[in-house]
Structure formats: C-alpha cells, structure tokens
C-alpha cells in the first residue's frame, strides 16, 4: 500500500512538470470534460466518438470483430516492416531470404509465422465482421456508405493477402499466383492487358515479383490505411454503432 501511495505521488508530481503539461494540455481524465478532451484532443483517438452507447460495448454486439481486424492489420504492419529488413524482392534471392529467416535470423521462423498467421486471421476476421454487420442490420441507413467502404476494405484485404502470397517465391507461391492471374486473362477485351500490367510481362518472373512486392508493401497498405481512416471516421459521423432494441 505504501508503494502505491508513493507511486501515485510521483505520478502526480510528474503531471505537474512543465514538460508533461506541454504534451498533455488537459489535466488528468477524472471529469467528463477532461475525458472528452482525452479523446478529441488526441490525434490517434479523435476519430472515436466521445461517448458511446453502453449497449454497443457488449461483446455480443460486435465480438470486437472490427477492432480485431484493425489490430491484426497493426500486427501485420509491424511484423511486415521487420520482415522487409531481411527480404530482397529478386529471383532467386527472395527464396534464399526465406531460408535465412528459418536457419540464420534469430526468431526468424517466429516472425514469419506471426505475419502469415495474422494475415490468414485478418481475412477470416474481415469476412466475419462483414457477415456479422449484415445480420445485425448495420448496413441500414445512415450507415450505407460505410458498408460500401467496408466492401472496399474487404477487397484490399484479399488483394494484400494475395500479393503477399507470391513473395516467398517457392512452388506454393508461384503456382497459386499462376492460377489466380490466369483467371484475369479471361476478362473480356481488357484481360490480357490487365494481366500484363500486373505481372510486368507475360510470365510470372522477376518483374512480377517486384510489382507484387511494391503493391504489397506500399500501395495496398496505404490504400488500407486511407480506407480504415474513413471507415472509423464514418462510424462517428453516422451516429455510432448500430444497436438493437432487443436484449442481447
């Protein structure tokens, strides 16, 4: 108990310092006013509503599926950047880098496992999130457009996962991408040009690997961040999560 009191005192002293107060201009979040300030005065949190309905916080209302999808994206971004330190988007170096991750890099196997697992989990979570929102009627007015953004996020998630699939440059990766890109050539008129654009040639080779790498590490993550921002923002602007009248 004495330690707790001591910690509280030190914390209170810290809060009074000039530096602390220059960073957190509000006081401690003890009143509703400062608690509101904690949300809308913070760049990371200001997309959230200041208040939420108690009902929308029950586990059965959301299973936190949207949050979980977002958390998985964060885990993927962090592990992905770490993996980029060990990766060359070149044939056949990419494959050697995978071997290095397994046999040379400390915890390389764990890092790759975590990235791959989180990616699979994100596909599942995003699909589940969409179906859950559908069954709860969360797409109904005034949430129509946020549902459309959500469909866009589903597409980006699938495409992110798909472009990442090629990067290890093993048999599994190569032939999975072959199956997928062959389908594109069946698109009427534009099929072959689109496939050429995506692969940077007629076959899956060095150019395709580089394009998938840039898509996977730069373009699609940026698209995802933009859409996620809009998605979160609109929850607040459209009046909070859908709550049902019946008891959960």
């Amino acid at each position, binding site marked *: 108990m004495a330690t707790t009191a001591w910690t509280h005192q030190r914390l209170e002293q810290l809060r009074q310092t000039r530096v602390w107060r220059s960073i957190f201009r509000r006081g401690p979040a003890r009143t509703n006013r400062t608690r509101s300030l904690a949300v809308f005065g913070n760049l990371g949190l200001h997309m959230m509503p200041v208040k939420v309905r*108690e009902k929308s916080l029950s586990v059965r209302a959301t299973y936190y599926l949207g949050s979980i999808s977002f958390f998985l994206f964060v885990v993927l971004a962090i592990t992905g950047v770490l993996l980029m330190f060990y990766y060359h988007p070149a044939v056949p170096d990419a494959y050697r880098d995978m071997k290095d991750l397994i046999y040379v890099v400390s915890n390389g196997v764990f890092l790759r496992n975590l990235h791959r*697992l989180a990616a699979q989990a994100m596909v599942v979570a995003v699909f589940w999130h969409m179906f859950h929102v559908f069954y709860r009627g969360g797409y109904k007015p005034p949430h129509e457009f946020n549902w459309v953004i959500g469909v866009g996020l589903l597409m980006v998630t699938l495409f992110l996962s798909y472009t990442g699939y090629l990067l290890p440059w093993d048999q599994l990766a190569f032939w999975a991408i072959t199956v997928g890109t062959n389908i594109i050539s069946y698109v009427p008129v534009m099929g072959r040009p689109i496939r050429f654009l995506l692969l940077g040639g007629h076959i899956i080779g060095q150019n395709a690997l580089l394009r998938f790498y840039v898509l996977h590490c730069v373009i699609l993550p940026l698209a995802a961040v933009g859409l996620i921002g809009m998605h979160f923002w609109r929850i607040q602007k459209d009046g909070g999560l859908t709550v049902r009248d019946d008891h959960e």
Partner: protein
Amino acid sequence: MSEKNSYEAGLSSDAVRQPRRVVFITRKVSAKVKEETGPQLMSFPHVILREAIAFQILTIVLVGLALFWDAPLEQLANPLLTPNPAKAPWYFLGLQELLHYFPPLVAGVLLPTLVVLALVVIPYFDVNIEGEPLWAHRGRRQLLIYGGIFAALFVLLALYDAWTVLVPTAVMGALGLVPYFHPASDSRFQKFLGSRPLPWWVMTWFIVVALTLTAVGTFFRGPGWSWVWPWR
C-alpha cells in the same frame, strides 16, 4: 418545383448532456431512423480499456499459435514443374472450385463481379426494411415464385454437374420451405427459421455455398481436381 421533403427531420441536442435525435416521420415513409436512447459511457476510459484488453488477448493467442504453427515453405519456384493440383490461396479455392464446373468467363469473372456488386448495393435496397419474415403472408404466388427460382437454379446447376453448389442450395431451399408448411411450430429452431426475412435467407445461402465450396476445394480436391477423401 419546390416540392417538400418526403419527411421532415428536426434535431435537438444538448451539448452537455447526451445528444438526442428526434425525427418526425410522415405517412408512407418507412421508419428508417428510430429514436435511440439508452445509457451512454465515455469512450475514455471505457472503450479504450476494452480495446486494450481485446488487443492483449489477440496478441497472446497469435503468439501462442505462431510459436508452434510453422508457415509452409516448399521448394524454390520452378515454372517447369507444375504441381498437381495447383491450388490458389484458400480464400480463392471456392472460386477455383467454381472454375471446375463453369466456363472461366462465368466462374472467374462474371460471378465474382456480381458478388462484389451485390455486396455494394445491399444497403441501397430499402425493401423489407422492417425485417418482415419471408412467409409473413404465406402467399401462394410467392411460393410459386420461390419454387420457380429454385427449380431453375437446380436445373442450371445439374446441367453443369455442379454438385458442390447444388447440395448446399438444396439444403437451404428445403429449410426455407419449412416455415411455410409448418408456420405454427413449437420447436425453437423452426420458430427461428420462421422469423427470418428474405435478405437473411439470401445471405445465409451465399455463406453456406461459399463455405462448402472453400472446404471442398481445400480438403477434398486432389490431382486433376478429382474428389479425394482427406483422411485417406
């Protein structure tokens, strides 16, 4: 020219207390916006705390799995050595299963495009906004339309030998008819089915078919996309 709004909405809010939305709805307009009340909580700390706990649980589960579940790595990519079967990532195996039955233009291009379009337009179809059960009126004409659509679907799927689509469709179709013929059933399951609206049936049918196709493509397809039992 200056036609009035089909509904008029007023908004009153109190900046200090919880905001209240009040909407006035005239006749002929469905009640899209209902007054929502109920206790509210401050996002800080209530939401932040819950999100942090969810994130921690997720991280623990992920790390636990990642310690023991190794990501696969096969031989170096070799364009001259085609594995049999060559499979797409698991979330596209439903599509690959469709490709086995239908021409590539239909299964690979047309159907996915239609699915995405259907998902996008969902919120803009205002029919049945109140969630009326499918057989609320037990209309004979409705039954004929319902039966006709399913019969046409059966014939089409049977023509293409698309059994892995036909079987889940038949199961869902039969389940959909249960509440029509047994409207006053005491069983909880039948009561549940009886209260489901049309959008629920369409989406559930879609999910059941998609899950079946993905599972079949993942576990039950071997060399030359032939049927194999995963435990053999």
